[in-house]
């Protein structure tokens, strides 16, 4: 089995019907890394929450049709890292993202109880990454 330290990257249009694609893609990747079926199902939920949050935030900013969400999944120090990234229009984006996540309290409680770590990271150019981390078993 490979070590999968280089990211597999998936870009989906910021539209609700693509969240299911993202889920399945990451489920496939997590299965490769050796997570059991139950944990893979959990990770699917977490990815779904994070992508939903990203898409809803982009929709609030308007003109969602040309926006996309980029997901990078990779292994690092025996942990699965899933970065859900999107470009926001505003410089205050990271605070907005944190607020937006808090508002979605159901989604956040699901996300944080499933994953070992959930971070919001700012990138250059007003990009925001929701970083989900889960320890790889064994």
């Amino acid at each position, binding site marked *: 089995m490979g070590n999968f330290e280089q990211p597999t990257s998936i870009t989906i249009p910021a539209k609700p019907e693509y969240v299911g694609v993202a889920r399945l893609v990451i489920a496939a990747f997590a299965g490769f890394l050796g997570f059991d079926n139950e944990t893979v199902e959990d990770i699917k*939920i977490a990815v*779904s929450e994070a992508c939903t949050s990203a898409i809803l935030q982009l929709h609030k900013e308007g003109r969602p049709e040309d926006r996309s969400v980029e997901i990078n999944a990779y292994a690092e120090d025996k942990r699965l890292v899933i970065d859900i990234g999107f470009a926001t229009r505003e410089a205050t984006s990271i605070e907005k993202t944190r607020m937006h996540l808090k508002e979605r309290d159901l989604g956040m409680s699901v996300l944080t109880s499933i994953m070992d770590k959930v971070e919001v990271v700012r990138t250059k150019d007003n990009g925001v990454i929701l970083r989900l981390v889960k320890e790889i078993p064994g």
Partner: protein
Amino acid sequence: MDLRIESKEVEGIGVIALEGEVDVYTAPKLKSRLIDLVDEGKYDIIIDLQKVEFMDSSGLGVLVGGLKRVKSHQGSISLVVTQENILKIFRITGLVKVFPIFSSEEEAVSNIKGS
């Protein structure tokens, strides 16, 4: 994957059976079906989730929204859930305390009739 929704009436109670995945894409379908039921005057509603393969907080949000709606008419929403993975998100979010959860439609019906 998609969400199939079937509604029927059992002893005056509105029963919605779901099959498939409930997420940000499909949850609006469920929401409008719930609104329709309430508009038809059904305030005691059973939602059968036994054939749901996937559900995230978008689905939970619609259930919570529906509950608010029926409560303003002294109604109730009961759930039928038998799969461990679906029960789990109700537990994680504390919604097991908000919704009565049954392991069959019949149980849910007799609980509503008995109360």
